């Protein structure tokens, strides 16, 4: 049997952990499923100087605080990877790599992103023998040697500067024209003036060369088309990130072309009860503080959604009177006219019915649940079960007659 939670959070980086803190605090029965080290990308950062309240802190230390905070509110953690989701029902289903199954009333996707692989010849084969992705882990292995860095974003330039502490020389391969780096201005100025750093402009890498270990790298000038090989013992790839959202491919969640999830300002995705926060959504700033902000918003929105669904379900199954669900679109005049007609008819019948109005733009899940495809529509429900669909094309007197005999 699938275990049930109120709120299930996929991913335990700063976004997921902040959501967990809010979820736990709101007394939602909350589970965080995270595949790697809790804290996500933030645990890979040696120094954080821009998280409010911490002048200087290491990534792992800050994330330990986040996790302990969530645990203090009773949040549960599971180390596993989510591989499949089914969001087509009101209860969302989730399956993990270790073949565990879960159900939840609401889901928050906080999977962040992972390094993009260039997949050029030699990259995979020589991984660990000169091809590297982590400066903290591996910079020391290149003491006194020549190293190449691919990329010019924040990570490439900042990590590249860290590598200069050990390497004899760091050569940065940059796609852009001379002087243009993708990273922030402060780092760019420092790097361009750095004695141990050199830059090769307008260029990409084509191949990593070496039998047992890296001996060099073949680069190509994209302006002239010329290729050349430069000798080095190490190559760090920092060519950007891709969102870790492959597992939601068939779940009906709208993303952009690169796989980043689209949300509104409440972090709602295109599926009711499913939210996305942090680096895996389309947004302006990808940082810890903004991931945490997203998490708070999503957890509060999810809490409200869970309440609404419960209230709605209780209202319908406990109603003494027959319930009439009236589906309408507030943007359509005829839809609104239909609503007032319904009110009049119910008034004439001495409020025989419990009329529940459902706005198409707000409650997409209910449309699916009750098989409604066009508005306006009326579904009559007794003790929680649908027993009749009323034709919305009837005029007022016909509708009155029809409803009189229900």
């Amino acid at each position, binding site marked *: 049997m699938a275990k049930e939670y109120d709120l299930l959070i996929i991913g335990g980086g700063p976004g997921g952990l902040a959501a967990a803190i809010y979820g736990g605090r709101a007394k939602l029965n909350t589970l965080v499923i995270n595949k*790697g*080290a809790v804290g996500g990308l933030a*645990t*890979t950062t040696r120094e954080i100087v821009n998280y409010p309240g911490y002048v200087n802190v290491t990534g*792992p230390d800050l994330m330990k605080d986040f996790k302990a905070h969530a645990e203090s509110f009773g949040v549960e953690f599971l*180390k596993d990877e989510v591989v499949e989701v089914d969001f087509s029902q009101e209860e969302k289903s989730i399956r993990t790599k270790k073949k565990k199954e879960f159900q939840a009333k609401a889901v928050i996707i906080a999977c962040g992103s992972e390094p993009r692989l260039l997949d050029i010849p030699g990259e995979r084969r020589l*991984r*660990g*023998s*000169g091809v*590297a*992705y*982590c400066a*903290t*882990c*591996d910079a020391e*292995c*290149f003491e006194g040697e020549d190293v190449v860095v691919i990329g010019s974003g924040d990570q490439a330039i900042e990590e590249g500067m860290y590598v200069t502490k050990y390497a004899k020389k760091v050569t940065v391969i940059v796609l852009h024209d001379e002087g243009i780096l993708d990273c922030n201005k402060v780092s760019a100025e420092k790097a361009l003036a750095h004695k141990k750093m050199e830059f090769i402009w307008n260029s990409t890498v084509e191949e990593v060369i070496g039998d*047992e*270990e*890296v001996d060099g790298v073949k680069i190509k000038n994209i302006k002239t088309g010329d290729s050349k090989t430069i000798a080095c*013992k*190490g190559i760090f790839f920092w060519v950007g990130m891709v969102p870790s959202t492959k597992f939601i491919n068939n779940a009906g969640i709208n993303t952009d072309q690169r796989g980043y999830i689209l949300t509104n300002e409440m972090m709602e995705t295109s599926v009711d009860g499913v939210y996305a926060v942090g680096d895996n959504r389309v947004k302006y700033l990808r940082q810890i503080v903004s991931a945490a902000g997203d998490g708070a918003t999503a957890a509060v929105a999810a809490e409200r959604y869970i309440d609404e669904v419960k209230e709605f379900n209780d209202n319908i199954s406990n109603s003494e009177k027959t319930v009439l669900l009236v589906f309408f679109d507030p943007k359509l005049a005829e839809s609104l006219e239909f609503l007032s007609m319904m009110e009049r008819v119910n008034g004439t019948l001495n409020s025989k019915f419990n009329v529940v109005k459902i706005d198409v733009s707000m409650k997409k899940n209910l449309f699916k649940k009750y098989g409604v495809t066009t508005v306006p529509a009326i579904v009559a429900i007794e003790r929680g079960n649908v027993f009749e669909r009323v034709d919305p094309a009837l005029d007022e007197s016909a509708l009155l007659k029809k409803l009189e005999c229900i």
Partner: protein
Amino acid sequence: MNIEKLNSTKFEEIIYEQECACLVIFFRKNCHVCKEVIPELEEMEPEYKDKFLFYSVDIEEERPLFQRFTMKSVPQVLFFNKGEYRGKIAGLAERDDIEEKIAEVMG
């Protein structure tokens, strides 16, 4: 860390004298990728009890050992059987890959 640490003397003994079928993870304390791979190995170890042994080497304490296998990064999981080096997996090794490699090494 629950996986038994080796120094160079123990390494010689276990790999080349006793010729154990085993894996050895080379790691560094402040390496975050190591922190993801090590728990995975810790979880797997009991399943292989007595059939395939799990060891670790802290490269800061055992530098020469690290240099001997032309390694340029951590973590790396090296596999041995019958006193022979049988290959390695570098970086963020997935459990499936490790299991597959163990099966191959045990033959």
